[in-house]
């Protein structure tokens, strides 16, 4: 029973992390059809900020991490993606591949390729003990922070003028522009929000692993990408749902796969992506923008 509870807690924590990453990817995809592989590098630059800034107290560290991630998000939007707006999705995907490769190798160029260790917070590293179950504080914080961010993002999209414009843009960008919405502002805001999500994700990830390296963003993005496909590309609710579903699948595979097959965990996860694309290409929650209008 305690073991099962532990697995459930792990699954929810994983799910929260993936939901956080997936949301950043789904937001951009919904608006401009770009699968941003460089989202992982936003996490990476945020993580490097934590290492480089030292220990000025956690509020400042978080502020700096998020700030740097947002700046990089806006910069990659302006330099690489804005000139390509309206290109085919595969072209955009290749461009984001190039941005990701560029930032990873810039990190190698400046900081070297050896991973750096860091201790983010001793408070977060401790655990709550509830009966025989020990719950790391970090897990509680991760779940809580994700929940708060989801609610905040939901309110932003529902209640503010910019949020409404953004949702409209995700549905039909062309019409929205004809109606006089500023495309550049909407897209820049979307990138800023994805930078914010990446920055917070970076803080939580480094608190968990205690390690920073140039390629640390690759795996989170790969998994988040699976989550967005599962949930339905372009749908924000789908991305969140997909994140939690993937967290559950991931934890189950980890716990249940016999040790001889444990190494193949990712193969099963990505096999599920192909099956999902075939069986239900629109995902669990169908975004209105992907319904083909002829």
């Amino acid at each position, binding site marked *: 029973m305690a073991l099962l509870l532990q697995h459930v807690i792990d699954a929810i924590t994983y799910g929260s992390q993936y939901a956080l990453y997936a949301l950043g990817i789904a937001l951009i995809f*919904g*608006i*401009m*059809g770009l*699968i941003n592989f460089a989202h992982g590098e936003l996490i990476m630059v945020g993580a490097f900020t934590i290492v480089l800034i030292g220990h000025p107290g956690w509020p400042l560290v978080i502020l700096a991490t998020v700030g740097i991630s947002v700046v990089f998000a806006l910069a990659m939007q302006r*330099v*690489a993606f804005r000139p*390509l*707006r*309206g*290109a*085919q*999705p*595969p*072209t955009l*995907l*290749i*461009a984001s*591949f*190039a*941005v990701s*490769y*560029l930032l*990873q*190798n*810039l*990190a*190698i*160029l400046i900081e*070297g*390729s050896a991973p750096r260790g860091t201790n983010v917070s001793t408070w977060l590293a401790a655990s709550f003990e509830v009966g025989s179950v020990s719950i790391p504080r970090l897990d509680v914080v991760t779940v809580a922070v994700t929940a708060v961010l989801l609610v905040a993002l939901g309110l932003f999209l529902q209640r503010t003028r910019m949020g409404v414009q953004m949702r409209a*843009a*995700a549905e*039909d*960008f*062309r019409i929205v*522009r004809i109606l006089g919405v500023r*495309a550049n502002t909407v897209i820049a805001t979307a990138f800023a929000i994805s930078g914010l999500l990446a920055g917070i994700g970076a803080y939580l990830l480094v608190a968990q692993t205690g390690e920073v390296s140039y390629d640390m963003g690759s795996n989170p993005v*790969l998994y988040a*990408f699976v989550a967005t*496909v599962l949930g339905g*590309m*372009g749908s924000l609710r789908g991305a969140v749902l997909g994140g939690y579903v993937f967290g559950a699948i991931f934890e189950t595979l980890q716990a249940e796969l016999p040790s001889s097959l444990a*190494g*193949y*965990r*990712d*193969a099963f996860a*990505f*096999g599920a*992506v*192909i*099956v999902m*694309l*075939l069986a239900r*290409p629109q995902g669990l929650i169908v975004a209105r*923008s*992907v*319904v*083909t209008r002829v």
Partner: protein
Amino acid sequence: MRAGHLAGSALRSVWPLPALLLLVYAAAEIAFTTGSSVTRGVVVVALINLVLVVGLYVFVGNSGVFSFGSIGFASIGAYTAALLVIPPEQKAILQPLLPKFIAHAHFGSIAATLLGGVVAAAVAAVFSIPLMRLNGIAAGLATFAMLVIIRTVANSWEQVTNGAAGISGIPPEVTPTKDTTLVWALIAIVGAFAFQSTGLGLRLRGSREDDVAARSLGVTVRFERRVGWIAHGFLMGIGGALYGQYLGSFNASAFYLTLTFTTLAMLVVGGIKSLSGAVVGSLAISFVAEFLHRIEQGADVGPLHIPARPGLREVGLAIIMLTILVLRPRGLTNGRELPWPRLPRGRSSLRGSATGRGGDASERYPDVPRAGPELNSPQ
């Protein structure tokens, strides 16, 4: 058209082939004879990359569907060929768990390379069943998922691939030389040109330009794509087999995101829609990469000392690729084959561009962003 022009037009239609063969041959020979011993190794790598990029082009260029997973087939080719060229005595020591029929097999380099291509093509045929049902971005994502699957299996299948430790002990005498890789590269170009000139190749290219119109003319599309996919799997397997034998020892990570990125970069920089694009792109990027690599290792340019900078080559490549994507989205060749040589005239460039014209609305109206991809486009 007047009868006298018929012979000329037939010559023109095959003209890109000898031109490309000559270009690759000349580039390889010049770089090899004028360069140092380091450059000679680079020429071999550049030619192997050329095989991989031409292989990628056979599917991506002709069908217009992006594949982010083709390097997986190169990986399969590499493992297959490597396991066949290592002498059985050595395999018994290095990989005692190998299944019998692999443990006892021993082939020469050429046969092993061909078998690498055949096994890769067979795996491609299996993957084509689910993948070729998909279109557009969904197909791209699925090929990417395939890459991760192949990589994970290659990294975990201790019995055959030796897991993360990888394959070692490939005898140095099978290391591809400049001459053997040059022959493979020229064969790959001839094969790709022959494929795109067949009726099936032309139908596939037609579906690339306009899927709906091609279907209305009776092209099944899915069948053509499947054949193109298997043919490209074969070439990728050959390229991977050569690369594996060149490396001497490798593991699954040698055939993952970096190689995927560099080969795609070469194709995109050259121009996705033409064989000339694949060839020109891979030659150009190989040249630039080698140039940047020299700087990366530190150099003295006159009085100026440039310190060693690991990562510089990759940064430079990424910047070049982004620049090309932005400034010349259809690549250096603009999606055309090498032009028939003639004196420049006023309107010749205008007429030439008609062949490279894409039928896509977003290309004609670059300002209009497309909200969502066609995940649901009808099969």
